[in-house]
């Protein structure tokens, strides 16, 4: 079986639709992961030993279990306890929450590297706690975590292919359906692979630009 250009052209619109779904899913997951991670990190560092322990347990639980198992769990087990959600919603929630756990570690590390003197200075100025967090500590932590966070969004984008397992029409799912329908797997999977690779480029550009501006700031 050799490469068939007309077939490739015929399935391309379908695959591009899958690209769009992948972008939407990645954006939604990232929103959950980035804000949820921040919330977890703040809870972990303000709520004393009990809060820290809860956060630790949650992170360790999510770390040791494959995403696929969590996806199946959400897809098959949640309806049994009365929670019915669309597959896309389950997928976005699972990926988002798992990566929120990962991102919280990044934020936590960034919060730890902020010199304690800054916090002391804010207290000395008798700033309200809300202002200390929202205007001083969090902006610093977010700025420090930026490269690692972009990297996690990139990982999230790559992992979004897993959502095909529960029937979310991401790019890989489109390729699989196209392959089923015509019994030709070469073109769909090759095109899907190439599209997945191409979609890395915006992230590479972002990271590169971030490094450039940061190098400029330090120079």
């Amino acid at each position, binding site marked *: *079986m050799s*490469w068939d250009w007309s077939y490739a052209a015929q399935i391309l619109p379908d695959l591009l639709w899958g690209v769009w779904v992948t972008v939407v899913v990645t954006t939604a997951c990232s929103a959950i992961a980035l804000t949820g991670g921040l919330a977890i990190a703040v809870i972990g560092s303000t709520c004393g030993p009990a809060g820290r322990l809860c956060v630790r347990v949650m992170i360790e*639980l999510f*770390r*040791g*279990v*494959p*995403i*696929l*198992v*969590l996806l*199946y*769990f959400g897809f*098959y*087990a949640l309806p*049994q*306890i009365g929670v019915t959600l669309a597959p896309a919603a389950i997928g976005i929630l699972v990926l988002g929450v798992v990566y929120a756990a990962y991102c919280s570690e990044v934020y936590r590390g960034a919060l730890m590297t902020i010199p304690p003197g800054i916090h002391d200075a804010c207290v000395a100025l008798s700033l309200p706690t809300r202002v200390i967090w929202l205007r001083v500590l969090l902006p610093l932590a977010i700025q420090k975590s930026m490269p690692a966070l972009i990297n996690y969004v990139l990982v999230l984008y*790559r*992992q979004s*292919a*897993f959502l095909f*397992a529960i029937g979310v029409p991401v790019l*890989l799912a489109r*390729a*699989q359906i196209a*392959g089923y329908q015509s019994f*030709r*797997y*070469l073109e*769909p*999977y*090759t095109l*899907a*692979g190439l599209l*997945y*690779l191409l979609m*890395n480029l915006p992230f590479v550009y972002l990271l590169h630009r971030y490094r450039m501006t940061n190098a400029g700031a330090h120079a």
Partner: protein
Amino acid sequence: MMTAVFEYFPAILDGLLTTAIVALLSIIGAAIVSVLLGVLRNSGQMHVRAAAGGAVELLRGASALVYLFWAYYALPALVPELPRFDPFIASIAVLSLVGGAYGSEIVRGGLQAVPRGQSDACRALGLRPHQALIRVILPQALSQIVPGFASLAVDLVKWTSIVSFVGVQDVLYVANSVRSITYETTAVFLIVAALYWVLCLLVSLTFLAIERTLPLNRALRASRRPTELPLKGRPLSAQPLVLQE
């Protein structure tokens, strides 16, 4: 209520064994690929460095799942002379290559962290480059590489869950069958999640043990021992001049 699941527990354990074997072989394969690619990325020749870097970026560019599907379904169509892949072998090959691409970054960082003077000294002593790498640089770099590789190995254990898609009967594959027979969805997936979790824990504990046996770490521990002795108790001047005990 859960008795139906326990009836199938031996089958799930069989699946767990398959998962463990796939994970073990992929970790070993990924370690080999990481060292190869990591060394090539530090090569003195520009084009070798560029080619290795390109391969790493290519392999990291999409998830292992996409590569597994491509290798299993598309590659045989592209190269008809190739014998049909065994799903087991295709899985391990893909996981080793993708894992190795991620690992090569760890190896490269570890090699670069070894002070430059070490390789200069090797050259001054007349060691060939590969001798210097294998006998001097790599053993020292390992104490940097192994901790990083440990978390990659845990990731690889989790990535093995994708092999169920090409028909390898790993623990997730078995769990899905048990689910469709017993309908005890929650119980089945809780058990599987727990099994994966324990497997990941075992892998990280193993790597902690490996870390302790590394030559540089052993040497560091040994060098720390005698110097600690004089600090205790009497002032230094009153210590007898015995450094080894």
